């Protein structure tokens, strides 16, 4: 018996530019990718949602601050509140933070330089829907490309995030000045994750690393389980 292809939505905002890579990567990992337009007031029937990278609404005001109010984001927030799996990559991470679905905020890199290179990240948790295929402490090499990826939380919030074990990925070397070298976090419930590195750009070894496939394939696995449970 063939297992069903989970349907994973990729929301396209004006200014998204990694949506096609995300759609391609999800298809390569045996999911059925579904492009969702930002003005959609309802999501189609989906098993997971990806918010792709880019510069939604030109990064006006603050990164992610405007996209947060798009109709599709209202639907995504409802989807997440109902326990749906949501992965935000780069600008998607920024949007999730601005929307209050993830803790903290992404600020300009402390160097003020745009960082565009492969970076090593360490897997801090493997018991999430996004990292189940990784091993604890595993070092992944995944590209980043951002000017505003410096994750910030004040002392109180950072202590709470650590206490709830919400840090999933940390940079293994300095990249952008993030508090605690945080590269990716989940919400307390564990169904929403955001990360600055781009797993969708590291799915085929031809491009230097296939480590990103571990993250996206974990998501596809978890989405497939949900699709099966719903049948």
């Amino acid at each position, binding site marked *: 018996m063939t297992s069903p292809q989970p349907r994973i939505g990729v929301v396209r905002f004006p200014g998204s530019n990694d949506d096609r890579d995300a759609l391609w990567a999800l298809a390569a990992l045996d999911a059925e990718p579904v492009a969702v337009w930002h003005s959609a007031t309802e999501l189609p029937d989906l098993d997971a949602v990806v918010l792709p990278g880019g510069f939604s609404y030109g990064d006006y*005001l*603050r990164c992610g*601050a405007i996209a947060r*109010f798009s109709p599709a984001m209202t639907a995504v927030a409802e989807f997440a509140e109902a326990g749906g799996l949501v992965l935000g990559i780069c600008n998607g991470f920024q949007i999730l933070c*601005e929307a209050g679905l993830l803790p*903290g*905020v992404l*600020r*300009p*890199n*402390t*160097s*003020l330089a745009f960082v565009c290179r492969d970076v090593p990240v360490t897997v801090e948790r493997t018991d999430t829907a996004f990292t189940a295929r990784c091993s604890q402490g595993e070092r992944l090499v995944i590209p980043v490309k951002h000017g505003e990826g410096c994750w*910030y*939380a*004040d002392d109180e*919030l950072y202590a709470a995030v650590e206490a709830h074990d919400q840090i999933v990925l940390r940079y293994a070397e300095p990249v952008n*000045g993030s508090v605690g070298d945080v590269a990716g976090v989940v919400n307390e419930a564990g169904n929403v994750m955001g990360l600055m590195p781009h797993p969708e750009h590291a799915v085929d070894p031809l491009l230097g690393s296939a480590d990103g496939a571990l993250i996206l394939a974990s998501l596809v696995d978890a989405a497939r389980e949900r699709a099966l449970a719903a049948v």
Partner: protein
Amino acid sequence: MRATVLVRPKDGILDPQGQAVESSLRQLGFAVDTARVGRVVDLEVEGSDPAAARAEVERMCEQVLANPLIESYEIELAGADA
């Protein structure tokens, strides 16, 4: 009614943009200790009641114009003492 919102990086928050401006000013020979860079939002809001307008702009700041994690804001209403 005209309202001006000043959004600033909160005290203690690292402001790399401000630091870059500060070092440029120093290079030009200006005696500058610190520079912090924020944002100005000019608004034309409906109604003539300053208290109501201020409350409305405060809601805008909390929801959109500032991120309370990292930014503080000040509201000035033109021609109002409120």
